[in-house]
């Protein structure tokens, strides 16, 4: 069974803290994604990575950075957390474009609250 795991289900941080959200997939997928989900806005893409050490900005990258040192792991970093980054964060992975179907497999999400 395919699996995407996220390091925390719930996280509470203070304004200005550095926050790391970790995501691991066991499907040997090339692509990995970070989304944030807010009511009425659906899912918005923050960053994605199509290979180790490669990354591209999504639609809302401001205030975030990412790291992909190993194929199976993709980290989202909030350098200095702010209250407007309180949200649900979803990680996903998919196989390489053009190779089979490109459906994305999602982790359970991390609900981050910034106080």
């Amino acid at each position: 069974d395919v699996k995407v795991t996220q390091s925390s289900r719930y996280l509470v941080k203070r304004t200005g803290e550095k926050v790391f959200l970790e995501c691991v997939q066991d499907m040997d997928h090339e692509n990995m994604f970070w989304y944030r989900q807010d009511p009425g806005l659906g899912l918005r893409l923050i960053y994605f990575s199509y290979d180790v050490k490669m990354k591209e900005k999504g639609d809302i990258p401001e205030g975030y950075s990412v790291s992909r040192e190993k194929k199976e792991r993709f980290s989202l970093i909030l350098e200095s957390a702010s209250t407007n980054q309180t949200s649900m964060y979803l990680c996903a992975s998919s196989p390489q474009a053009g190779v089979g179907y490109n459906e994305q497999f999602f982790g359970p999400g991390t609900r981050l609250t910034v106080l």
Partner: protein
Amino acid sequence: AQSVTQPDIHITVSEGASLELRCNYSYGATPYLFWYVQSPGQGLQLLLKYFSGDTLVQGIKGFEAEFKRSQSSFNLRKPSVHWSDAAEYFCASLMDSSYKLIFGSGTRLLVRP
């Protein structure tokens, strides 16, 4: 720019009634189309997908969707809703050779006993 529209923010149906959730996409060519479901507190689970071929697609949990090119639509249906279907449903599209899924804003389904 490619976009996906789910015109209904909330839908309430009675248990046992039929369901149709609407989805429209904007893209010149036929995109890859998906329906995902998110139960409360959970991540997204794929219900079904359409890439080509038969325009009526069967998915898990008794759901189906029909691709209509003339209407740029990919509506999700279920003939008889169960209380456990209460969740949020997302339609999404993917352009050929693209990595990026474009999501609609979601439709929250409430099921009356």
